[in-house]
């Protein structure tokens, strides 16, 4: 058991190394001169030179990479070209809204998608099932910012039920905090709900055909117990895996959702950094989000090996 956990943790190291190497070498493999592109059209040669120096582009690749990794291991993500603040400081200032949004979305999405998927599988072939599947195609097809604007237009602007835009820190009270996150998390969660519901339905359909389900039914287990305890427990592994993989959708979607709802989080930081071509900030954000994604999926792996005794180490 311990050996397995250790092996899984070690296996993420090359993946993280590839991510770091890739994000770093982008500066070198991209066609053209990144310093000129970042400096913009109106820059003087001196400014271009300053940016070239601050990105370290005037030194050899190996020296720079070693230096960069060394600083990375000390949690130093470099300095923003635009604000001259450490990237870690910028991230720390903006992380609360993004984490709030993602956690609320995760909870809302899972608590909607799993029961919906189970019911669709139970009622397979009926109109309930068709509605769920139609919704799932809809969720995959309508981009997050479209859902965001429509929700904001209907529920905030027209009906005035919820705040239109902005973010209230959790320190100013749970209720205003949550109210501000309802629309963004529904918008962000739509595609995620579609994904989880679809996998839940597919896995449950398979499980429900197995003999032990018939046995359980024969011995008189109620419908709810049968679906949500006997069957769902055995369908858990693919569902949990998809919840982990889907985090990538949440991360990408958060960038857009924050723009639509004017939430001052990491997504806004990303958009601001793009507009200013502040590459160190973008680099730091890509690394942070990829790291988060890898860690979440590692955690998912480890959790279900602990929970499901059928998985051999």
């Amino acid at each position: 058991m311990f050996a397995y956990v250790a092996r899984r943790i070690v296996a993420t190291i090359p993946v993280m190394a590839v991510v770091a190497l890739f994000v770093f070498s982008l500066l070198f493999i991209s066609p053209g001169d990144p310093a000129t592109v970042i400096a913009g059209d109106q820059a003087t040669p001196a400014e271009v030179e300053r940016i070239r120096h601050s990105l370290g582009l005037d030194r050899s690749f190996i020296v720079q990479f070693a230096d960069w990794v060394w600083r990375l291991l000390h949690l130093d993500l470099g300095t923003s070209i635009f604000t001259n603040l450490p990237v870690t400081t910028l991230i720390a200032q903006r992380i609360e809204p993004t984490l709030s949004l993602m956690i609320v979305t995760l909870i809302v999405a899972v608590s909607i998608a799993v029961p919906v998927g189970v019911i669709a599988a139970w009622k397979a072939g009926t109109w309930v099932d068709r509605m769920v599947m139609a919704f799932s195609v809809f969720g995959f097809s309508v981009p997050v910012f479209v859902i965001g604007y429509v929700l904001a237009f209907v529920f905030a602007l027209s009906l005035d039920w919820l705040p239109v835009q902005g973010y209230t820190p959790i320190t100013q009270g749970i209720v205003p905090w949550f109210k501000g996150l309802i629309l963004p998390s529904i918008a962000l969660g739509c595609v995620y709900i579609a994904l989880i519901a679809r996998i839940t339905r597919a896995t449950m359909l398979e499980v429900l055909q197995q003999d032990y389900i018939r046995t359980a039914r024969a011995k008189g287990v109620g419908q709810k117990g049968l679906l949500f305890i006997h069957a769902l427990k055995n369908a858990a592994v693919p569902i949990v895996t998809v919840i982990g993989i889907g985090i990538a959708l949440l991360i990408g979607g958060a960038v857009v959702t924050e723009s639509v709802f004017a939430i001052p989080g990491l997504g806004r930081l990303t958009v601001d950094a793009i507009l200013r071509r502040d590459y160190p900030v973008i680099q730091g954000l890509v690394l942070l989000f990829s790291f988060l994604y890898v860690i979440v999926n590692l955690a998912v792996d480890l959790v279900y090996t602990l929970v499901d005794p059928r998985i051999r180490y």
Partner: protein
Amino acid sequence: MSSQAPDLTSSAAPDRGDHHAVPAKRHPWLLFLRRHPTVAVGGILLLLIAFAAIAAPFLGTTDPTKVNTIMRTRAPSAQHWFGTDVLGRDLYSRILYGARVSLLVGFTVAVLSSVCGLVVGLFAGFSRRMDAFVMRIMDGLMSIPSILLAVALMALNRGSVGNVIFAITIAEFPRVARLVRGVVLSLREQPYVDAAVTSGTSLPRIVVMHILPNTVAPMVVQATYICASAMITEAILSFIGAGTPPIVPSWGNIMAEGRALWQVKFYIVLFPAIFLSLTVLAVNLVGDGLRDALDPRFAKKI
């Protein structure tokens, strides 16, 4: 997903019975579309949008980049069907021309990702020595959320349709590579491939005769999903200012320009949004239908 198209698991069984009911005289294509109505619905929708994009100059449009400061932010009317934007440009024209960008990006990314993924996947699948190395690189690429990967690439390159296509392809092709490698690994152990190897068939011939035909079905399905996701990614990139340059009328750009005014001029955001959603929906319907039609067992693993 329409009523007739069952999902991932149940698709193999229920459809098999009813094709005897269809008269055998029909053209095989019609037969296929009848058995898989989602492909038909999605295909027709997609053809309509493609037609509108190609024939845009003949469909009552004006120059999509023509600025008319007197006619700024006018609501939809007989003269401007979808209204005008902040610079007085006709939104109907901009949206039809914008379809070109979306379709071009979606289609090109799907093709390029398939080609790159096929090459890398075949290489990894057949090279026992390089397999682990190549797949770790693919894993690394896949663990960068694709929008952020594209954002990072776009931050270092000038905004152009070509660069957008390049950035999204880099983010998408590892999925195809993994898929193809999976097919190769499972086929490599099949007795008939063993037999071919034993009888002295060359590697290129094995690839062409035995491996490629088996990758076509899952790759076509995967390519349609990549097409759909590339169109969304392009719109998102343009929307947040990291995509096609503002001069190009793409749906993401139109929405980005309408963003500041969305509370008062909602139609500027709404019309491109509807077109984008419909196009992605059409591609997804085709993808779902093809998945059910081609190989439901394999599609499940994607």
